[in-house]
């Protein structure tokens, strides 16, 4: 899956959470810091492979943690997709 972050997000940081305003949808979301890490990693201009993202976040974890972390990160990606803060890369028609 190739993913990019939407443009022009506005972020307000608090301790463990961030508030994200998306001018594209007009929606406001409260995200925990882990989800925000994922969001921060993603570029807006060129698509990033989800496997590359997962590799980045799992680089220091132990082997027996990898499967669980993989699922956790996938869940967060799915949530961000649902919130339309990220989208899968469109192929040109």
């Amino acid at each position, binding site marked *: 899956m190739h993913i990019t972050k939407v443009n022009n997000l*506005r972020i*307000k940081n*608090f*301790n*463990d*959470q*961030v*508030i994200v*305003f998306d*001018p594209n949808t*007009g929606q*406001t979301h*409260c995200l925990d810091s882990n989800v925000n890490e994922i969001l921060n990693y993603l570029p807006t201009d060129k698509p990033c492979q989800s496997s590359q993202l997962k590799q980045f976040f799992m680089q220091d974890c132990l082997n027996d943690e990898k499967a669980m972390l993989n699922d956790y990160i996938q869940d967060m990606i799915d949530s961000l997709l649902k919130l339309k803060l990220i989208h899968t890369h469109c192929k040109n028609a």
Partner: protein
Amino acid sequence: MPIKTTLNSLCTNEIYQQLKNDGLVIAVGPFVFCIKSSLPSIASNVEKIYGDFQLLSHDDLIDFYVSIKKPKGLRRFIKPQINFYCDDYSPFLPLPASQAFPLLEWGMNWCIAQHAHHYLLLHSAVLEKNGKSVILPAQSGSGKSTLCALLALNGWRLLSDEMALIDLQNCQLHALARPISLKNESIDVIHKQACETIFGEVVDDTNKGTISHLKPSTFSVQQVEKTTAPFAIIFPKYQAEQVICIESTDKAAAFMNIIENSFNYSILGEAGFQAVAELIDNTQCHTLTYSNTAEVLAFFEELVS
């Protein structure tokens, strides 16, 4: 400083005639309303409750033309009903004629909520003392209206009982100083207070029970043009027999709570987001659970001392 003419410079008959004919023009905080109605209950309540408000005329710019009218046809006479109009438009279903004044109050709130998007509008009470303003978001079970009335009767300047107006340009709170709407037991609680209270007509056939409006203090109305920076947001919760308990609110949670309590955040876009961010940054946010009047008043005094 030019002296303002207030409504109480008019006699009863003059008020009635103006309401009946071209409309009575008064300043309500930053807004100007032209009120029209031939109903005697409107005239008597307006005279009683709005006496301190600045009287203007049709030579001034007017924001809203509101009226309370009886419909044509049988409902004028049989189980009489009334309608609220904002200019030619009637946004609500008709109500029994006995609810004319509450309907006018609700209608005026509606006008502001629909047309004042140069403010961030929050469903909350706002009061000020010692130059410090406190916002009380109106969650259900908060006892906000009673609390607001109690504070207003104990030396706090009332900015609003229902709606915080936060200027999107500079995040200052603007006042309305409108009558405080009270229901059921709250009316008795406030009546029993030692200080002088002036109430509008008690209307007791609404399905939320009995409603009445408390006249705002002359001091609050005279200071209505004074804007102020928000100091604290207190999320109140009334719980019978609960010893007073104050907790700091997580700021991210406070942010989301505030936008849930806003009338117009969802349409303001980025301007709304920035305004709430600045509001949360500049205020202390607490949750307050209480049951005792004396304790809660003491808490607020301490907060702004």
